[in-house]
């Protein structure tokens, strides 16, 4: 389905609305702060090329779009194909996507659909050979038919409704094997132990680089700001994985040097914030940016566009093909802290652990209007955090820029109250 509103083709790319939206956000990320790490230049440039200038991100072979972190990317790599995460953060595409979904749906789902229906979609990753849509939340489930209606080839990867039972585990392992069969049809290749091992080595190298970056954020005063880390993890959605890993390793080396030099990326007393809830996806880095523009620093996150996507690693018992596939399946189900699962105490445990080990002063909980599961977990998360003496600010927002004034007031007041409390405690 072509979108009747897409008249941007005649315009030079950088004048299109989606490009200018991305450019404004990048300008804020780079210009509103001093001392950006020089090795972040790779990522700033990557986003400028892909989002503002509409340059193609070169890809070889079969491209498989993914709509969620539940799609096992190692399998996709093992078949010689490349995964591209499609979750979109653009307000421009959010508005286009409103044609497909009810008005009160989640911005992320709307923007993803809006992007997929556009002729001039960014980032430019080329035509997708398949979109794998894990059956997670209701809105994503129902998006399958709409994506198919746009002419995309869609594969529904069946996720069980719970994650704890043995039944769920077996169900999911079968789903993942079925997915491998589909990938075999798509690529005409066979899944071998060697290919899968190579694919797993590739993602595990990326994950190790991420963990190193993640651990640097424990340091106080901070060595790097959260807005940069969100940009790094967002680049993972579409960048070449090896090139991405190299760039993160260079960034890590620079942070190690910063640590030696006693460099401070934020003031010593800057409130340290743990970010959780609906994922910040470029260019919608509105809320993390407001936190850091107001003098806070995001030191850790529990979101599916960063930590939840990259932290948990595969653990294999026996390196036999079937066993490896099952272990992969486990990695994508067991540690996941998505609120779609009925029992999600793991999320609370993880938040408490992050809050403690990263010396967090407060938690900011983002819920996209229309994402009911995140809204429903808000209360239990707040109660658990408050019981542990950690304050939490819940914010409901979406991709539109019109609540920026109120968001700023709330964030500033939250940071001021943290500072006052700390001052009185000492």
């Amino acid at each position, binding site marked *: 389905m072509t979108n009747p509103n897409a008249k941007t083709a005649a315009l030079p790319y950088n004048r299109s609305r989606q490009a200018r939206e991305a450019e404004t956000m990048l300008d804020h990320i780079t210009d509103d702060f001093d001392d950006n790490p020089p090795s972040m230049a790779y990522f700033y440039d990557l986003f400028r090329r892909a989002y503002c200038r509409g340059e193609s991100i070169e890809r070889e072979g079969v491209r498989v779009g993914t709509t969620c972190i539940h799609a096992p990317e190692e399998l996709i790599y093992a078949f010689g194909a490349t995964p591209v995460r499609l979750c979109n953060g653009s307000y421009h595409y959010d508005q286009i996507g409103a044609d497909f979904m009810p008005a009160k749906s989640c911005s992320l789902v709307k923007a993803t659909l809006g992007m997929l229906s556009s002729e001039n979609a960014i980032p430019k990753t080329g035509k997708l050979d398949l979109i794998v849509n894990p059956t997670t939340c209701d809105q994503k489930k129902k998006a399958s038919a709409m994506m198919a209606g746009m002419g995309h080839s869609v594969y529904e990867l069946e996720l069980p409704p719970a994650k704890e039972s043995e039944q769920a585990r077996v169900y999911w392992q079968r789903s993942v094997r079925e997915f491998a069969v589909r990938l075999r049809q798509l690529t005409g290749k066979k899944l071998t132990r060697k290919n899968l091992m190579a694919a797993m080595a590739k993602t595990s190298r990326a994950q190790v680089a991420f963990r190193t970056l993640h651990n640097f954020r424990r340091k106080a005063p901070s060595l790097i700001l959260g807005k940069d880390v969100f940009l790094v993890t967002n680049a993972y959605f579409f960048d070449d994985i090896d090139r991405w890993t190299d760039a993160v390793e260079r960034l890590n080396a620079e942070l190690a040097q910063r640590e030696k030099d006693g460099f401070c990326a934020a003031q010593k007393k800057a409130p340290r914030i743990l970010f959780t809830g609906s994922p910040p996806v470029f260019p919608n880095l509105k809320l993390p940016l407001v936190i850091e523009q107001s003098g806070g620093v995001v030191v850790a996150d529990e979101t599916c566009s960063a930590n939840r996507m990259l932290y948990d690693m595969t653990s294999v018992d026996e390196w036999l093909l079937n066993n490896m596939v099952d272990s992969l399946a486990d990695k994508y189900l067991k540690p996941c802290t998505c609120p779609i699962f009925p029992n999600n105490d793991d999320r609370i445990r993880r938040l408490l652990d992050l809050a403690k080990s990263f010396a967090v002063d407060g938690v900011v909980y983002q819920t996209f209007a229309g994402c009911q599961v995140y809204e429903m977990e808000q209360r239990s998360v707040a109660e658990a955090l408050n019981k542990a003496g950690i304050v939490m600010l819940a914010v409901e927002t979406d991709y539109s820029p019109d*609540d920026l004034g109120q968001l700023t007031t709330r964030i500033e*007041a939250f940071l*001021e*109250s943290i500072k006052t*409390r700390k001052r009185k405690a000492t």
Partner: protein
Amino acid sequence: MNYFAGLDIGSTAIKVALVDEEGGLAGVHVSDSGSLFHKNAKAALGLLLERHGLVREQVKYLIATGYGRKLFKEADDSISEITANAIGAFEVGKAFGGVRTIINIGGQDSKAIQIDATGSVSNFAMNDKCAAGTGRFLDVAARNLDIDLEELGDYHFNGKGVPLTINSTCTVFAESEIIGLLANGHGKEEIVAGIHYSIAKRTLRLAKRVGIEDRVYFDGGPALNKGLVAAIQDELQRELVVPEHPQTTTAFGAAILARSEFLSGNA
């Protein structure tokens, strides 16, 4: 003598408060925000100084707050209106035996703030980007009913029937709901009371989110509306502390902070 100022640039009104060296309130001024926030804020400060026979140089420290706080570059510092409101209400509330919960209804926001025994903000909640239940809502409603904003309180108490129910939580939808009620021949008095109760119910939900502790302080422009005060008291089932100048509590809080920043040598 030295003075310290708090300048609260809100969406609808600009409020200025001056405190003297002892921390006493020396004067307040309220004027419309209009569209030229910066120019009007400067004029408001000038007017207040002139009225008290003071010159700008006597104001040793000025803190801006409110929606337009970042626009006023002449300020020494800025602070969010939630923190400023807490400081102001804590100070004014002392005369009433101390307050712990603040309900503030402004031109386009409504907030509930909980403060601890030392006056620090311990929790707060704010409406999400929607003018329902705010001063703007009253403004629109008064215009629909063809009455002055100041008359809303009188209409509230003059009703003979039961307050009507206004279900819409959106200002725009509520507007058509009000027009619908008028078209059905309902009295303005009952509609006004209904509007007040609808705001009161939303306010109660907001306050419950932060937890209601005694005493509850109510400020912001709409606190001048006696009908609304009565409706909120009814919904809360307790008395509200309404200060003499409900519009300027936040500006006063910013002025108090300006004084303490200056005296503690942070300036």
